[in-house]
Every structure is written in C-alpha cells, then in structure tokens.
C-alpha cells in the first residue's frame, strides 16, 4: 500500500467538503463540511508522516485538532447568538456583512 491511495482519499474527502460548503444552506451544515475538510488535510498529514517517517506530521494533526475544537466552540456560540437574534440559520438570509 503506497501513499497515493491515501492522498487520493484525502483529496476526495476535501473535495466533498468543499462542495458541501458551497451547496449547503444551513450554517451548522457548513460547519460540518469545514470539519470534513480539516479531517481530509489531517489524513494527508498522517500519510506524509508515515511515508516520510517523521513524527512532525502527527504533531501537526494534534494542533489542527486543537484549532478545530476552538473553532467549533466559537462558531457554534456565534450560531446560537445568531439564532437568538435573527431566528434563522440560513446563510442566504444572514448576508449583512456581504458587500
């Protein structure tokens, strides 16, 4: 089993996440797709770490997980605050910051 399979799986997962971010209307669904993209990159990191025989890739995965946890906590708090104030979760209706 060489690295190409892992990288292709990672690329496919990342692409699915990207399509989800573009397509989904619900803010929480967009968050879920961002998590999917982060995990695809994590898979690349671990695969490269394995095949280059370096532990540093796994350390990076650790940091990515920490940042993802912080991002999820703050993002979901923003979502809750948004729902309280605007009573919507649609990304199409919360476009005040657009333009």
């Amino acid at each position, binding site marked *: *089993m*060489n*690295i190409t*399979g*892992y*990288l*292709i*799986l990672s*690329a*496919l*997962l*990342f*692409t*699915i*996440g*990207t*399509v*989800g971010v*573009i397509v*989904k*209307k*619900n803010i*929480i*669904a967009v*968050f*879920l*797709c961002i*998590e*999917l993209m982060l995990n695809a990159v994590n*898979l690349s990191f*671990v*695969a490269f*770490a*394995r*095949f*280059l*025989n370096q*532990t*540093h890739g*796994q*350390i990076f995965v*650790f940091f990515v*997980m*920490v*940042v993802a*946890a*912080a*991002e*999820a*906590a703050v993002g*979901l*708090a923003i*979502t*809750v*605050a948004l*729902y*309280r*104030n605007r009573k919507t*979760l649609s990304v*199409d209706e919360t476009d005040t910051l657009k333009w």
Partner: protein
Amino acid sequence: MDTFLFYLFGGVALAAAVNVIAQRRIFYSALSLIMCLCSLAAIYMLLEAPFIAAVQVIVYAGAIMVLFLFVIMLLDPYSSAVLRDKKKVLAYVAALLGVAVIVLLHGSLRAYELARVPRTAASAAGGAYGTVRSIGETLFRDYLLPFEITSVLILVAIIGTVILAKRKI
C-alpha cells in the same frame, strides 16, 4: 490485508462524507460525519498512528461532534428541511467546481511522485515511530512553545464562547 482494510474503511469514509452533504436533515449529517471520523481513525491505525487514532475518536468524534449535536438539538432539528433551495443552479455549479478541484488535486498528486518514497525506514527507527512516547517527546521538546500558545488559544476560545453565549449581546 492492509489494502483490503484501506479500501473498506476508505469506502465507508467516502460514503459517509457523501451522506453528510446529501442529507436534508442536519442531525443525520452530523451522525454521518461521526461515522466518517471513526473510519478515518481506523485508517490512522493502518498508518501506524495509534495516538492520533485515539485522539480522533475521543476528542473529535467524542467531544467536538457531541458539541455539534447539542447545538443542533438546542436550536432546531428540522431547520435544514425547512430551508428552501432557491437557487438550484448553485448546486450544479458546485458539483462542476468539485470536479475541477479533483482534477487539479489529481494533477498535483501525480506531479509529486511520492509513490516512490520507500517505507523501509520505519524499522530503522527501532519501531518507535508513532508511539505515544515518541510523539510526546517531539511535542514537548521541539514544539513546546506552540503547545503553550495553544493553551492561550483555548483560553481565548473559552472566554469568547462564554461571552457570545450570554443572553444579552
């Protein structure tokens, strides 16, 4: 055996990922993402990263996704079914863009030619690769400052979350 397990868990991960964006109900999307994360943990085990696999299950599937599920249940479980797709064209544009991204990524993967990198060096490291001990030593020796800065980041996230989630904003 490795190849079979890779295709098995890779297929499960891909199917779960497609289900994440295909589901109308946001709750099922989240459950599907948990499935995807668990299969990725199995693939991490194949890549000899047991620590990362354990952290993936405990922290990602266990903590972060439970946070997501709590917020989904707190807000509105059926809101994604209520949302109308006004611009159906965007979905097709997104699918086209996805194909373009796949082509670009495939080209760059081919160009890199990392498939030729041998994986024989693992035994040279004395089988210490990927153990909790080696990761801990690297983390607390080479990456001590980033690790400490991470704790500040977590603190900022905690404070920000508490302030944002307060009743009056």
